[in-house]
Every structure is written in structure tokens, then in C-alpha cells.
């Protein structure tokens, strides 16, 4: 399944409540993702919490957008990506 980088902007900053409330929010996002076969791998959040860079696996860019919409999350840009790490060509 292709992997995507999803950039989002939160003008008022992204706030995830701590504790059970936050857990519930994240769980409901995961449940909604699974409807369309979309998997949230993880995210990087800017220090001012206004931008996030999220890594997703999903069948298509549209599925990522629809899921974002169901979860009430904005989407600025979607880029298809692949993994490159320092040891990608390491042999042995």
C-alpha cells in the first residue's frame, strides 16, 4: 500500500487533551481510519503546534482525504513518499 506524507495546518494550534480524553480522541480516529483501510503510522508536530507532518498508509490519496474529513482534520498537501534511511544501502 502506498505511503503518504500529509501536511496539515492548525491556525489555533493542535491540542490533544492529556489522559483518557486524549486516548478516546485518538482511538476514535483509529476506528474511523480503519473504515477506509487507512493507517496512521505517526506524526511530527512543529514546536508551535501549528503544523503537522503525518505519515499514512492508505489505498489512495482520496481515502486519506475522506478520512481526514471524517476526523475533522485539515489537509494542506499530500505527497507520496518512500523510506530512505542512512543504512538503506548497507550490506551485511
Amino acid at each position, binding site marked *: 500500500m*502506498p505511503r*503518504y506524507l500529509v501536511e496539515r*495546518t492548525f491556525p489555533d494550534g493542535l491540542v490533544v487533551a492529556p489522559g483518557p480524553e486524549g486516548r478516546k480522541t485518538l*482511538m476514535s480516529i483509529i*476506528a*474511523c481510519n*480503519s*473504515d477506509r483501510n487507512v493507517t496512521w503510522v505517526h506524526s511530527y508536530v512543529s514546536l508551535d503546534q501549528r503544523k503537522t507532518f503525518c505519515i499514512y498508509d492508505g489505498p*489512495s*490519496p*482520496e481515502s486519506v*482525504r*475522506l478520512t481526514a*474529513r*471524517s476526523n475533522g482534520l485539515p*489537509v*494542506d*498537501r*499530500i*505527497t*507520496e513518499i518512500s523510506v530512505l534511511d542512512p543504512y538503506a544501502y548497507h550490506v551485511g
Partner: protein
Amino acid sequence: MEREEQLRTLQEVVAESSGSGRVVLLSGEAGHGKTSLLEVFLDSLDHRYQVLLAACEPLGIPAAFAPLFDLLDDLPGALREDIRSGAGRPAVYAGLLDLLKNDRVVLILEDMHWADEATLGLIRYLGRRVEATRSILIITYRSEEVDLTHPLRLVIADLGPSAVRIDVPALSLSGVTEMTKGLDLDPVRVLATTLGSPFFVEEVVRHPEMRLPPTIENAVLANAAQLPDEALEILQMIALSPEGLDLEVLAAYGPDTGAYVDMGVRRRLLVSSGGHVVCRHDLIRDSLLRSVPPVLGRSLHLRLLTALESRAAGSPDTSRLAYHSVGAGDADKAVGYSLQAARDAASVGAHRQAATHYSNALEYSRVMVRETLDEALLQAAKEHSVINAFARASELASQRVDLAAGNLERARARAWLAFFRSRENELTACRKEALLAIDVLRSEPASEELALSLAVVAWGELVEGDKEAAIRYGDEAVAVAREVGTPDVEVHAATTAGTARALLRDPAGAHQVEEAVKLGIDRGLGEFAARALNNLGLLSLWRGRPRDAHTSFDRMIEYTMAHELDAWYIAGIATRATLNVAMGLWDEADKDLEVVLGQRTCRQTEIETLITAATLRARRGDPRATQMIEEALASIEGFSDHEAKVTGCALALEAAWLGLLPIAEARERYATLLSAPALSTDSSGRGVLGYWARRLDFDPPPGRIPGPAGPEWSGQLAEAAESWEERGFPIEAAVTRAMLPEADLDSVFSELFRLGAEGVIRGLRRELQRRGVKRVPRGERSATRENPAGLTPRQTEVLALMTSGLSNAAIAQELFISEKTTSHHVSAVLTKLNVSSRLQAVVIATANGWSSPVPGRSS
């Protein structure tokens, strides 16, 4: 076991249902414990709730409303009678809704992946209304059975985000470890073999002596193999009867049956209650079924059929009789019961089931007399056509042509074949058959078949772009249809003729289509009314008026949804998706496309959807756009529909502009289309192509270029941009505005950014650089901060004038635009500010300091 989260969600739904009712979609693979979860949930349920439980069974062809028969004893008398007597959908739907309204009910519909169409319609109906009750509707289904093309999928999509979705997943390693505690079993191996299926793990745990069988089927059969052969046969017979069997029926097969049933119950293969016995789980039933050898299967089916016949005095369940007579291979009975079951199913609108029953009956065509066969073929073809299986419909209809005796009969059969071929969009084939039919039928007294053939030819001419011929044949078809009194054919032909007239700019055309809509709706002609509504919307679209078209399609979608005309419903949604893409309503377009993609549709809709989806992806600058564009363009190859060729060419030109396709390829496609004769009478096509030719500096299409692209070619850029905006094409409006010599590029780019049109931003930047514009902005979000509502410069001007208290007429005068255009701007401003009145808009504008008029314009 590992179901706490799911149970809690169910209980929360109950807690909240005192405010408003909800739909719960409970999915999971077979054996994942959906039913067990529900049992635990029902135990915990408050006694104020009435629980109604109905399940579908895997009967090859489900009977209409089959699951509701489980409920009969719990339902009020009138509703019970309606269901029993096959009173039709509206009465049953309304009756159940009343029940949900009057009481607190938990209505559980289990295993809906096997549901018949009437029940699916019920889910849709109740699902959209349950919020107004204090009841809960729980739908369970096997997730692995419901793929993208499954009819339940569309129903789920319709229920939308308000439905609560609960998935019952496989067990984790810790769950398996917990269950195998104290047994000599390696939990990791158990997990690997069972894939965490709770049903399978339970079987393994219950019979550790079996070691670890590789599949569920092996586990079940190893368990059943402990029984004597006679008992196994009884079990297999019970498995062949999806709803289970009564003990008294079983008693007829020998004195020991009771004891055998007890053995099955003891080994937990069967459950028995109230003198009725059934397999404990569908996975057990499936495994037992697969173990039945074919010859034994026939004799078991025959026994069941005989038992059923001897008891079916009152209202015979034809669907079940058909199932067992097909299983028993009894040709005469299979034909008789299948035809009866098909008519029963069709009469309550379960067309999918009707079509399958007809197909089953036709397997035994060798025992049918010619008249029966001919009628069965025609009805089978009609049912297949209703469910969009057009190729199969044509195949059946062509068998009738071969069967026909004599010229006249053959011509009549050809007329129907031509009609089904036309639904397949097989232009050449349908015209050939229709013309052959017309040749014979014209010299006979007027007939339905003559009207039908003429209507088919008219349709073909319209699709190929010969509008005069479409009018000629269409008018003749209307006259014949009136004479013989077939309003369905009349509506079909009048829609075609009216559409052709409108395309030739004859004002009578749209009126004729309106009349066809009215006649179609009045006479309840479902799909013919839907087509007329569809064309009415298309006429607005072709005139370059997406807003009007959108209104028409909303109406059509509502009508087709209410009448369960799925094919037209999907076609309507597909076109609305196209409109939403054109109008910049892309979130809406996503939703529409999701409904359409993966549905089985006609080729035209399939092509339209691919083009729309590719256009949207390309305009957004999303990944894999080129791939999708190529797929869309490939889908048009060999398709003779002129409109598809035009939209395909427009896609190629746009893709080239966006840098996603080589310019040379776009140029070649464009040149090919310019030489097509149909383009000379297709003004809307010239308008679309004219815009893109301008963008790419290609030669303009020959003849007058209608719509906003016209003024752009003659250098009136401001007028062109204004016209795009007023018609409801924000992308074209923004791009054209960017071409103005004094263009405010920052605002153009921020408008495009607001629309999410990253791809268009890239394309526009390329064009501006090509035209030598020095400073091309980056088009990031920054510019929108000053104007968070994302108003265009024109809309900002209009808002400023509204703030000064000007009326639409005064604003129109001030800005040198028409009053109609002004009112479009005003409503766009209200939409973007998310307010419903002028006053609210003015308050927001003043509070944010956006009310100062734009320098250089009004005082």
C-alpha cells in the same frame, strides 16, 4: 474476551439514545464473535427496551423481507399481516418505523451481507430516520463478504458518518494465551493457525485431542466424525436447510433421529430450542455443507422438498421450495417454483433475487414449452436490465430472437434486444437490431415494439451527435407510443427528442424534457422519469450552468433514492461529482466519488467517474495523478460516445497544462477531435475545448466559441473571468483573472490555495512564466490571513458595498455588472462567511475591518 471496548461503545449508544436514536454497524469476520458480543450486550440491557432480533440466512436466493419473518410473533397485528401478505415495501417500512417511534426498541438485523433487496431498502429507510426515535438499529455483517461491489456497501455509504461503526477484530496473542491457559497448547502456534478467530480457538480448546487442525472446516469435521454415519447424515440435512428444521419433520426419517440430534447438540454442533433444531454457528453449517457428497445432497434436498410441500398449505415459501427443488435437480419443480419465486420477488421489488430465480429456471429450459420459455426469457431480461446486468439481459433477449418463429415474432424479439443493447451502450449493435425490427414492424399495426425500436434509434442518433435524426425518430416513436398507450416508451422518446431540440438551441426542447419528467413522475415510470430528470440537468450543464444543473441533479438523486433506482442514483451521483469538481466543492466531490467508485455501472458512468476523479486529483496536485489520467484516457478508447470524447480531450488538455501529460499527446488528441463532424453542432464542446486551447496556445476550435472562453479569445479577459465566476467555475475564473495585465496575482494564488488547488497553482505558474510574467507569487497560505474567509477580490468589493448599505441593484450599477451577477456574488459572500443574512455579513465585515472599499473603485 477482548471485547470490552466494543461492549462499552454499544452501551454508550444506549445511554445516549434517550436523546436520539442511532444506527450501529457491527462488522467482523465470520467466527469473530459478533453474535456472542450481542448476547452479552443484550444481557446487560435495561428492561425498558424491547429487543427485536432478525437474521438473514444464506439461502442461495434470499426471499424478500426474509429476516422479518423471524419477528412476526413480536410485531403488532397489522404489520404482521402486511409482511405475511407481501403488502409491498411502503407499508412494511412505515409500520416498522412507527414501532421504533412509539417504543424504545433495539432492532437487530443480523448477517445483512445475505440480505435481499427489500431488506436492504428497509435498512436505508430506517437508518435515515432512526435519529428521530429513541430506538437503536443494529446491523451486523461479515466484513470479508462485503467487498466494494456488494449491495450492502451502498447502503452503508448512504448511512453516512452518523452511524456508529464497531469492528470486532481478531484476538491478540494475549487473548489467545488467556483462552489456552492450562492446556498443552502453544499460544503462538494457535494464534498463527487460527488467525485469532475466537470461534476457531474455542473449537481447538474444546477438543484438545484433535491437536491443532489446520482449518476451521477440519476442526468442525473432525468433531462431527465422532458421530455415527446416520447421525452425520441428519446433521447434513439440517445444514442444507438454512433456517434449521423442526423435530417433527426430522422424526419422519427414522426412530433414532431424536437421539442423533442429541448427539449433535452434545458435541456443540447443533442447538435446539422449542422443537426446532439448527446449526450452532454458520461456520459449522458451511463446513457440514461442503462435506455433503453431490448425490446424497440431491436426495437430502428431495426429502426436504417433500417435507416442505406437504406442509406448505397456507402461504408457500416459493423461494425455499425453489431452493430445494433446484438442489434436488427436479427439473419440472425447479422450473415451476423458480418462476413463481421470481414473480413473487419482482412484485416486491427484489429484482436481484428475481433475476437469479429466472436464471435458475432457465437452466431447465429443455423442459419448458416454447411460449413459457419465450416469456421467461423476456421477463428474465427485463429483471437483469433493472439491476444493470445489461450484457446478460441482451444475451437472454438474443436467445428469444433465435427462438422466434416467423418474421414478425423475430422482429418483435429484436426490438427488445435493441433496447437492452442500447442500455449496454452498444450503439452499432442496438441500431442494427432496431432498424431490422422497424423494417418489419412499420408495415404492421402500431405496436409497443415499434415504438421501442424507434426510441432506441433516436437515442443512438443523439449519442452520436446527429440531432436532426434523433428528433425525427424520437417524434415518430412518441406518436406510436401514444397510439398504443405505452407511456414509458413515450417518456423515453420525448426525452431524447427534447434533448436534441435543446441542443439545437430550440427553446421548445427543454420544455419537452420538462413534460417528459412530469409524465414520468405522474405515471410512476421510475427509470424513465429518472432519465428525463437526468437529461434536464445535463442540459444546464451543457449550457455551462453548473449551479442550475446541481439543483436538477439534487432533485434526480432524491427521486432515484426514494424509488431505489440504484443505477440512475449512481449515475446522478457521478454527474454531481463532476459538477462539484467544476464548482470547487471538492469535499462534496470526494463523498460522491466514494459512493460511485467500485460500483458496477454502465460504461458511460464509469468513464465519467474516472475522468472526474482524475481531474480532481490533478487539480489538487495529489500523488499518482498521471497514472489516473492515463487510466481515464485509456477507458475511452474504442467508445463512440461523442460527449465522452470531448470530456476526455478536455482532460488531456488540462493534464498537459498541469504538466502531467506531454503537450504533443494533448495536441494530437485535440487535432483528432477537431476533425470530428459532431463537433460542428456541439457548441458546448467547443466552449470547453476553446478554454483549454487558449491556455495552451493551440488553434481555437472552428466556429463560434460559446461561453466565457469566447470573450477571452477576443481579448475581453475581465468579462471572461466575470462570466466564469458568475456561472460557478471558480478555478477557471481565478486562472482567467491571472491573465489580466494588472492582475492581483497574490489574491488569485491565495484563492486557488483556499480551494486546495495546488496542482492548478503549479499549472498557472508555468503558464505565467511562459507568458513572460516576471514576479510569480508562491501562493502559500500567508495571503489568506488578511482575508480569512477567502473572498475573491470581486467578492471583497461586493461586501464593501454591502457594508455601505447598497442594494443589489445599486451594487450592480456601481460595478457595471448585471443584477443577477450581483446576487450570485452576494450569495457566494454569505456562503463563505457562513451566515444566512446580509446583516450578519455586514456585522462580520465591520468587526474585522474588511469594510473599507477597494482603492480606485467606488467612493
